[in-house]
């Protein structure tokens, strides 16, 4: 886990030691044993995209960058995914779809390469005499239906018990080593969003702004995920672009502009939003929207301290919007697309977006060493919508806001 020189190859972080990975597997094994399970099968995706890789990476530091191609039996099936089997003893067996998995990065007791991933899993479980037992399965949000069909047909004697919650709960509390990487990830986020806002000038296109962000992130070693944004007459939308999530619209003076931004640095997410007005002072109405988004987020952040429930934090944001006259509109009259599409003020994050979510009634409590994204989008009819989001760490004493980038770019 050491690097030969100073360059980054993505997941080469010596800070997170092999012992930390093994400790995670051990905890998962203990939890599985307590639930009467003989083993756990953990399933994740890679494929060059930045979604759904968390659990296998968390246990083994493995990511497959081979792209997601449809199954073609008997040649391959389950490509771009990876499986990790954890036994009651805490032994980890990684099943990889690529021959060139990184020997210097992966932490596992054994690695099996099979281009048909469920075939590899069935072979390992058979060999361990676990193919007629109760096995935990962490795959609900990562395994596709075609793979699920294959898995059940190849292992008809296994009783699969969902355990997605176990890893998500473990992942929600970050270690000191993880927090070190997270701080660096948010700094890269600052560089990306800073470059985007610098590029956000009259005459530039939304795509030019996105390109500036991509460049700033890529040269620093990040894996970009997406930059969904909108501007001017389309500012009510979360993203007006559709594949990609930005358009080639030319920005005009006085346009409201907003963009969310997410990606991974050494596996860990940065995820925050900024809004501004292009090349002009905001009007009073625009300022009301811009400050409204910031105010809602700050109201939620003010509520975050160890012991507070996520449901309570949600109510603080909802009260702010109510008290300040913001309304998400209706599907036929969209005022703020995100306000309707995402009835939440944020979530935990780390190797993924993960629970707990800041949604109504969530009884989960805020705890030290959580890493959260707090977000809001608000709009006014005829004005447009603005979004705002901060990444925060929960400490023993309260909250540390991580982005160094100003909330009010228009004041610069």
């Amino acid at each position, binding site marked *: 886990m050491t690097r030969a020189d100073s*360059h980054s190859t993505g997941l080469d972080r010596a800070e997170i030691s092999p012992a930390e990975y093994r400790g995670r597997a051990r905890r998962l094994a203990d939890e599985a044993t307590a639930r009467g399970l003989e083993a756990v099968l953990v399933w994740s995706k890679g494929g060059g*995209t*930045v979604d759904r890789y968390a659990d296998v990476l968390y246990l083994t530091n493995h990511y497959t960058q081979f792209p997601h191609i449809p199954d073609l039996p008997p040649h391959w099936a389950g490509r771009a995914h990876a499986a990790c089997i954890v036994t009651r003893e805490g032994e980890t067996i990684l099943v990889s779809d690529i021959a060139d998995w990184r020997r210097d990065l992966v932490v596992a007791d054994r690695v099996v390469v099979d281009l048909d991933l469920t075939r590899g899993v069935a072979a390992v479980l058979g060999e361990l005499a676990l193919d007629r037992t109760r096995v935990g399965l962490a795959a609900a949000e990562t395994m596709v*239906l075609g793979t699920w069909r294959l898995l059940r047909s190849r292992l008809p004697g296994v009783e699969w018990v969902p355990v997605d919650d176990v890893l998500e709960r473990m992942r929600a509390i970050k270690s000191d080593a993880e927090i070190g990487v997270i701080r660096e990830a948010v700094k890269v986020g600052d560089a990306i969003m800073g470059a985007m806002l610098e590029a956000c000038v009259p005459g530039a296109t939304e795509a030019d702004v996105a390109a500036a962000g991509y460049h700033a992130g890529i*040269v620093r070693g990040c894996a970009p995920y*997406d930059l969904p944004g909108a501007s001017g007459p389309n500012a009510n939308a979360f993203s007006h672009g559709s594949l990609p999530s930005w358009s080639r619209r030319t920005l005009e003076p006085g346009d409201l502009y907003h963009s969310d931004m997410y990606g991974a640095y050494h596996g860990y997410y940065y995820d925050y939003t900024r809004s501004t007005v292009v090349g002009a002072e905001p009007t009073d109405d625009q300022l009301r929207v811009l400050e409204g988004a910031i105010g809602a987020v700050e109201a939620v952040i003010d509520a975050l301290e160890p012991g507070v429930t996520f449901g309570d934090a949600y109510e603080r944001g909802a009260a702010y919007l109510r008290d300040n006259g913001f309304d998400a509109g209706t599907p036929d009259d969209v005022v703020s697309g995100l306000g309707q599409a995402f009835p939440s003020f944020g979530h935990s994050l780390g190797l993924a977006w993960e629970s707990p979510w800041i949604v109504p009634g969530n009884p989960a409590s805020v705890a030290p060493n959580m890493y959260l994204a707090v977000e809001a989008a608000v709009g006014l009819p005829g004005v447009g919508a603005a979004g705002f989001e901060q990444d925060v760490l929960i400490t023993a004493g309260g909250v540390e806001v991580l982005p160094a980038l100003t909330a009010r770019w228009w004041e610069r």
Partner: protein
Amino acid sequence: MAEAPFPHSEYEERWRRAQAAAIERELDGLLVWSKGGGPVDTCADVLYLANHVSPFPLIADIPGHWIGRAHAAVVLPSEGEPTLVVDLPDWRRDLVPVEDVRFSLDVPGEVAAVLAERGLADGRLGLVGGNAMLVSPYRHLLSSAPAAELVEADDLVEALRADKSPRELDLLRAAADAGNAVVTAMMETALKPGSTEAEAIAAGYAVAVARGVATYDAAVASGPNSDFYSYGRLPSWTTRTLEQGDFFHVDTYGALDGYLYDFARCCVVGGRPSADQREVLEAVIDAVHAGTARIRPGVRARELYEAVHGVLVRRGMTGTAENGELVSALDVSFPAHGHSFGLGWERPWLVPDEDTEVRAGMCFGIEAMAGRAGVGSAKFEQDVIVTADGAELLTTIPTHYW
């Protein structure tokens, strides 16, 4: 995309062809499921039928709040118009050709309601989307529509997609044009000693994003790591500094108006390969050229595989050394020499047992990766359209960077 890429009549034609295929399989209709959320990888089938991709990211299901985010579904009865179910209110009214669009944060729940409304609640439905639909929304679909008989039909829309219309071929040409500019920018940077792999990719992505491309990935390896398909992990490139004499190869893919470009180039940094390196570079380039030269309607997909593979075998460069040790990763990881593509990667694949005959109007990526122990590996890929008498090359940038 800035505007709907096809006239309404082309979507109607797709619906009719899909309905005919459904009737042939004795289905009452189709339920087509795709994923968006930013990545380009599993959006093809709904995009083909409804020109919709959700930009909302994939987040875990929280019943009571949302289920099936980043997904979208098309319900297409064997007769009649389709219904599109989307997960966000700000779907693009100007791009979607479907009249009946429903927004719900519970995508499988809304699909079940549509099935009931359209008399399909206990119907026999072809379920398309086995490589896109996740287990969690599938479970919710089963519980929301318990009487529906869901028959696996993953290949049904994919088969329709393999034959491109003239307008689709134009879009593939435009995508390749963007890809040509993207890879040119990457190679110009990579040829200069002192650049990093990341700077080469950043140069290419700057071109891609400004042109409206949705980038997918760029798998890169260089120098002592060139036997890897890509050495970087999240991202698929590193910040390694390229040195004079290093092998560098990149396989990059992205979508313009939904349609992919997908090609690979390789070089030696500084542009002066050694004799050994040149042998490797020429082997992969000549192998792919042998494949493209073989293309014409009627040739079987496996014959294209054989044409490419034959060159590598004759030159003793199959990717695995004589002692059995792996040299080039893809020799094991990807035992194929290409594939059809359009809105996604699709059948037919160029593998040794694929008997499908190539047809005019199909589009292929033809590729090879090979190397020599102690020398390193190279990767090369060309995009082509099958014409009445051969192949139209879409990848028009240089092949030899020395």
